[in-house]
């Protein structure tokens, strides 16, 4: 289990995360909702110390990793995590196939002769054929990049996967396939997932718990059912996707 306690993150003067408290249950899917620029990406980056928290604790398997200095110890923690980057972050000097197998060299003992099999298998999981393996990332569409990036995460079989908007830029059918994939990983391998998403349909389908991030804090945490029924006006407006409500008023006041 992962527990975030009073997490704070400033970028200079800008206080992005003020006091985030969140539990991430093992083997469950936790979705994080929140407006654009509310600090969702920053939050999950802090979780594996791609960003250093300004204050607060991050407890992973009983240990606080928020102040861990040693790169070796941090690498040992990170190896259990997979991270799907919002923009894919594919290595542009390598082919799709090399991207997918990149982590295997460092994180597993899989022999190189098995790589073609893994490339084929993981690309198939995200709805791509192995013909794509020879292409360069610059030859892919936005949605394809996202899926290749996901295949790269899946290749190393992480116990916890942090998804930064896995369905953004995908067509509705592909989005649903990815949603199913996240559920599949939970059911078959017991993978813990943290999913940042703006896709309400997907969130309600996959989430065991939803956290709503607003103004640097978790405004509401609960099951999808609780989110549907809530009378919190902020959450209600967000879930409904309406431009009328308290959030709009706040924006205009700023």
């Amino acid at each position, binding site marked *: 289990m992962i527990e975030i306690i009073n997490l704070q993150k400033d970028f200079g003067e800008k206080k992005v995360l003020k006091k985030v408290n969140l539990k991430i249950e093992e083997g469950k899917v936790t979705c994080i909702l929140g407006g654009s620029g509310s600090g969702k990406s920053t939050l999950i980056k802090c979780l594996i110390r791609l960003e250093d928290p300004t204050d607060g604790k991050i407890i992973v398997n009983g240990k606080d990793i928020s102040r861990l200095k040693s790169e070796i110890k941090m690498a040992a923690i*990170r190896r259990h995590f997979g991270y799907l980057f919002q923009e894919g972050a594919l290595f542009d000097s390598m082919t799709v196939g090399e991207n997918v197998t990149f*982590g295997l060299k460092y994180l597993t003992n899989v022999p190189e002769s098995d790589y073609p099999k893994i490339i084929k298998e993981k690309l198939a999981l995200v709805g791509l054929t192995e013909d794509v393996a020879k292409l360069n990332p610059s030859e892919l569409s936005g949605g394809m990049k996202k899926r290749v990036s996901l295949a790269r995460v899946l290749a190393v079989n992480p116990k916890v996967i942090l998804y930064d908007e896995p369905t953004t830029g995908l067509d509705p059918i592909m989005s649903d396939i990815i949603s199913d994939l996240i559920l599949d990983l939970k059911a078959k391998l017991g993978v813990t997932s943290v999913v940042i998403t703006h896709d309400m349909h997907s969130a309600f389908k996959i989430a065991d718990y939803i956290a709503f991030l607003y103004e640097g804090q978790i405004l509401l945490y609960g099951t999808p059912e609780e989110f549907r029924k809530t009378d919190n006006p902020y959450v209600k407006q967000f879930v409904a996707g309406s431009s009328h409500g308290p959030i709009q008023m706040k924006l205009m006041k700023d």
Partner: protein
Amino acid sequence: MLLLAVRFEFKQAVEQSVTIGVESFGVTALTSFFTGMVLALQAGNTIDSIFGDPIFVGTIVTFSLIRELGPVLTSVVVSGRAGAAVTAQIGTMAVTEQIDALYTLGTNPIRYLVIPRMVGFVFTMPILTLFSNLFGVLGGYFVAVYALGVPGEIYMTDITSFMGAKDFMHGFIKSFAFAFMVGTVCCYKGISTRGGAEGVGKSTTGAVVTTMPF
């Protein structure tokens, strides 16, 4: 597994050495050739006006090249050519989260990007310096023989007289030091790049400008 990782990075280091060497060779050779020519012309004319004869042109050209100019010229060319390319590449990786991706896939930018490139610089720069000296001396030879009328054999013997292994080592050690510096600055500027394409441009010029004064 450690062995596997080392072998993998070894491949990277070789690749980088070849890239850096090939990228910079042509410009280094050309620049050195012309510098050797200018050196010979200046030294020849000055000595001629004092002694009435362009003596020791070969010595002066070789001496300045091997001790000072060769390593300096080479490091300027390498930093402008290969160094800028390194900063731009690592910088682009930084702003597109590829560096973060390295961390999440079990390696890190020091191990995967910086060390192979440092090896590349430290390995190729002395070799390039050697070529730079060679082309410089050759440029000097052409001017000395065809413009100043120094007999070829005299130029050649001038090169070896007064030149000791100490002078050679002096230049050689210098080129190692320069390689280390160019590598460090260019990699550091790349990794610390922020702010999109504009940031990449800034850090690339920044890297070249920082290495120049040395």
